[in-house]
């Protein structure tokens, strides 16, 4: 019944509908007619109706009511109906539908039909949408067909077997013997089918290798599909197998040199060869040949070829780095290509190629690229540049330059996690603070759209007015999001502790926001106001300078010596409101901090105080609690052991065990000379297995003749006592000159 006139009429009617609404109307009418006809007794039009239904389905309309009809049609003896029925089964049914089970029996019957086309229909459908159970049921049938004499059926059966094996791996064993015999067939079609079966059945190695060279030579470029298929098989077989790889080497070399590469087809074969060579354990000469072929691809005018060349190079850049470096120039040129896919590949490859030697030139190229590249690639490029810059930056300044440049161009596309990295970098590069803060405010504009961390640092040597101005502009700018404003407000507050003369200005700024619409800002402003009024003396402590964050990620070269195990909490945790600072820790620290208002040389206390910025309410609340809980720590009469006594400066040590693995050490220093000592500082180092936390000292000047002492508490966490040693460096200035000394403590009293 071809051509299908009713079908074509319907299609014409649908296409002539001028609007979506009209089309829907036509289709609904047709569907109603089809449904009615399905329910009716048999007439000549069943296959047409199903075909119509399939067309409607392709346009995107629901067609579930046709499923049962498909099942019925498949079972019909009429070939036309069977054909359309199977087509419908492939389109409408998939293994998740219940109706698919119903056709299992029909397929089984058709597989043994006398007509090979009926058999092929069944095979095709099974290969397309066979579920696991169907496959299991019908596997023996397929096996039988694999041995049949008809090559048409054999090849279809072979591919059907492939599908079955993919679904149900255990059945692979079943097909192995049949597949072996298939390989000796000369028919290309059958060979084709057979080659995929061993892809999945790894039993065939020995047999396969012997048979392939002659077949291959015969095929020539006229059957590229088969060549590629064979090459892929070789790749899988040779992947971890030395012997097989050796046998293949000659063959692969022959293919690589003889294949004509002027057409796409030839290139396809070459590509597959290259992939194979790179994957198996080939000898080095062959690998060089492969990389050269890829290099030739790169210079090709055809974009497709360049694209896949870069993809392949990416895969091997880890192992054959030098070889790929030779092509760096070409790859960088590809960055400028018009095409988006090529650009993306070039970008990834370039990022992989950046190394210590070429970093400056690569960076220049990449930055130019960043300013002109399309949106979706920007974030990827920016983070890639960051990573590369981190690992290979020749100097701090250059690094920061690059990052700021990236920020200004990429703006809001930069990913969140890079921001704390940046901030941390800035804190580390303390000599560049002036430079960076000005830029950092600009950088903040770039970060306007970022949520996430914004741990702030306040360098001291900056001109305070400038910073204040910048912050005010940020606050007032209409572009600022509330989050940014919150951060800016907090920054302003922090500044208030550092600078002395602009306090009033700050207070006014803060009180403006007391009546702000945004609840968050208002809350913060009110609390900060409260801080001003009532707890002025607490301000300093609460808004203490952020500790320097130490990065925990690998690959970052710290310049620290081995002995220093000063572990600051690498707090890169996002600032969630649930993260409350532990009150207990705060007590100790506040006590320590209250006395400290100047910059000291030693590292500051390590608890994550910086999280105060996000918990202003809790901080306020805690403050009240803490003030109530403030008690002087009970002075346990611990042993005081003198550990150092020279030039009139004496240091004594007393220990108190907190638990089996923690101990608090108190160091007390006194001065018995006739002159005052100033800038008295202590630094401590412990072995790697011990963790050290130093609290702030009570002061740093020792008046003459022992008028006052300086105490400092140190908390040690250790695994075993055997290793517990501590080295202390004492430095101070007296009578205009500085002194330094070290003392090692090997035994701790009371331990």
């Amino acid at each position, binding site marked *: 019944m071809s051509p299908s006139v009713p079908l074509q009429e319907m299609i014409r009617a649908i296409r002539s509908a001028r609007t979506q609404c009209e089309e829907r109307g036509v289709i609904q009418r047709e569907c109603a007619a089809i449904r009615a006809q399905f329910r009716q007794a048999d007439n000549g039009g069943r296959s047409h109706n199903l075909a119509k239904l*399939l067309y409607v389905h392709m346009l995107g309309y629901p067609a579930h009511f046709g499923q049962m009809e498909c099942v019925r049609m498949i079972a019909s003896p009429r070939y036309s109906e069977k054909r359309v029925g199977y087509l419908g089964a492939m389109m409408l049914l*998939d293994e998740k539908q219940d109706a698919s089970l119903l056709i299992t029996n029909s397929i089984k019957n058709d597989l043994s039909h006398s007509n090979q086309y009926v058999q*092929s229909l069944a095979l095709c459908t099974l290969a397309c949408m066979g579920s696991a159970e169907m496959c299991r049921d019908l596997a023996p049938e397929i096996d039988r067909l694999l041995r049949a004499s008809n090559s048409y059926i054999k090849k279809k059966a072979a591919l059907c077997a492939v599908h079955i094996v993919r679904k149900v791996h255990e059945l692979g064993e079943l097909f192995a013997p049949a597949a072996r015999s298939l390989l000796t067939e000369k028919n290309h079609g059958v060979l084709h089918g057979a080659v995929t079966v061993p892809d999945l059945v790894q039993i065939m190695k020995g047999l396969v290798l012997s048979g392939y060279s002659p077949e291959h030579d015969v095929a020539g470029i006229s059957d590229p599909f088969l060549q590629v298929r064979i090459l892929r098989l070789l790749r899988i077989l040779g992947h971890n197998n030395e012997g097989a790889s050796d046998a293949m080497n000659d063959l692969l070399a022959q293919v690589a040199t003889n294949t004509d590469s002027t057409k796409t087809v030839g290139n396809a074969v070459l590509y597959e060869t290259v992939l194979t060579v790179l994957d198996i354990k080939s000898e080095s000469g062959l690998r060089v040949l492969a990389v050269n072929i890829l290099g030739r691809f790169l210079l090709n005018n055809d974009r497709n070829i360049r694209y896949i060349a870069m993809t392949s190079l990416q895969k091997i850049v880890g192992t054959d780095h030098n070889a790929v470096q030779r092509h760096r120039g070409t790859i960088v040129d590809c960055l400028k290509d018009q095409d988006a896919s090529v650009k993306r590949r070039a970008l990834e490859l370039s990022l992989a190629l950046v190394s210590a030697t070429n970093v400056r030139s690569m960076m220049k190229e990449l930055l130019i690229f960043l300013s002109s590249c399309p949106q979706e690639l920007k974030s990827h490029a920016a983070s890639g540049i960051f990573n590369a810059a981190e690992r290979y930056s020749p100097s701090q300044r250059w690094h920061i330059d690059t990052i700021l440049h990236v920020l200004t161009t990429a703006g809001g596309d930069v990913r969140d996690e890079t921001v704390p990295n940046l901030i941390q970098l800035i804190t580390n590069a303390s000599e560049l603070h002036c430079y960076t803060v000005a830029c950092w405010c600009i950088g903040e504009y770039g970060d306007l759209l970022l949520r996430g961390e914004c741990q702030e640092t306040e360098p001291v040597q900056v001109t305070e007015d400038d910073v204040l101005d910048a912050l005010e502009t940020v606050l007032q700018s209409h572009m600022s999001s509330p989050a940014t404003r919150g951060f800016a407000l907090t920054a302003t507050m922090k500044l208030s502790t550092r600078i002395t003369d602009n306090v009033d200005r700050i207070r006014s700024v803060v009180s403006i926001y007391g009546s702000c619409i945004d609840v968050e800002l208002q809350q913060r402003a009110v609390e900060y106001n409260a801080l001003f009024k009532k707890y002025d003396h607490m301000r300093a402590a609460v808004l203490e300078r952020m500790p320097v964050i130490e990065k925990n990620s690998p690959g970052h070269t710290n310049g620290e010596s081995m002995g220093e195990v000063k572990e600051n909490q690498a707090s890169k945790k996002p600032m969630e409101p649930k993260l409350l600072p532990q009150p207990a820790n705060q007590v100790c620290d506040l006590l320590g901090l209250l006395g400290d208002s100047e910059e000291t040389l030693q590292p500051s206390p390590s608890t994550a105080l910086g999280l105060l910025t996000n918990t202003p309410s809790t901080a306020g609340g805690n403050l009240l609690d803490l003030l109530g809980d403030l008690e002087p720590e009970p002075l346990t009469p611990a042993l005081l052991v003198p550990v150092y006594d020279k030039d009139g400066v004496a240091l004594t040590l007393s220990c108190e065990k907190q638990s089996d693995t923690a101990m608090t050490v108190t160091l007390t220093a006194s001065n018995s000379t006739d002159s005052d000592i100033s800038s008295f500082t202590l630094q401590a180092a412990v072995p790697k297995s011990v963790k050290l936390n130093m609290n702030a000292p009570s002061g740093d000047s020792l008046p003459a003749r022992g008028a006052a002492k300086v105490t400092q508490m140190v908390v040690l966490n250790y695994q075993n006592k055997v290793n517990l040693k501590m080295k202390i460096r004492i430095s101070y200035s007296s009578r205009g000159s500085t002194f330094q000394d070290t003392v090692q403590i090997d035994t701790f009293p009371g331990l």
Partner: protein
Amino acid sequence: MRFLLLFSRQGKLRLQKWFTPVSDREKKKVIRDMMLLVLARQPRSCNFLHWRDLKIVYKRYASLYFCSGLENNDNELLALEVLHRYVELLDKYFGNVCELDLIFNFEKAYYILDEFLIGGEVLETSKVAVSDSMEEADTLQETMEEYMSKPTY
């Protein structure tokens, strides 16, 4: 190969073949994504794309886009050849094929595809063999009298 789609420049689907089980919703989503991605490409750009974890290969023939989704270890250049071979087969069967042929005889397009690809893999590489099988299968399609004379089940 995971799927093969044919669609026009206006975004109308002409053929869809799925080689893995995919739900209806997912199919619609994939079709929509493919159309968006492919129709947005510049005329002379690279034929390969990356989407989710698949490689997408597409080729434009007159007003139709042939788009296929490949797995990671498939050869893209070869997929281009596969698409080209399919077009050649259609051309041989319909004689100077155009989009209208595919619209009005979509079921034939499917049958030809089934002779060429099964389960996502190339079945028959010879053009002659495929067209011969199609002709034979067509002769099996009965005329009206034979149709009515055969019993229903």
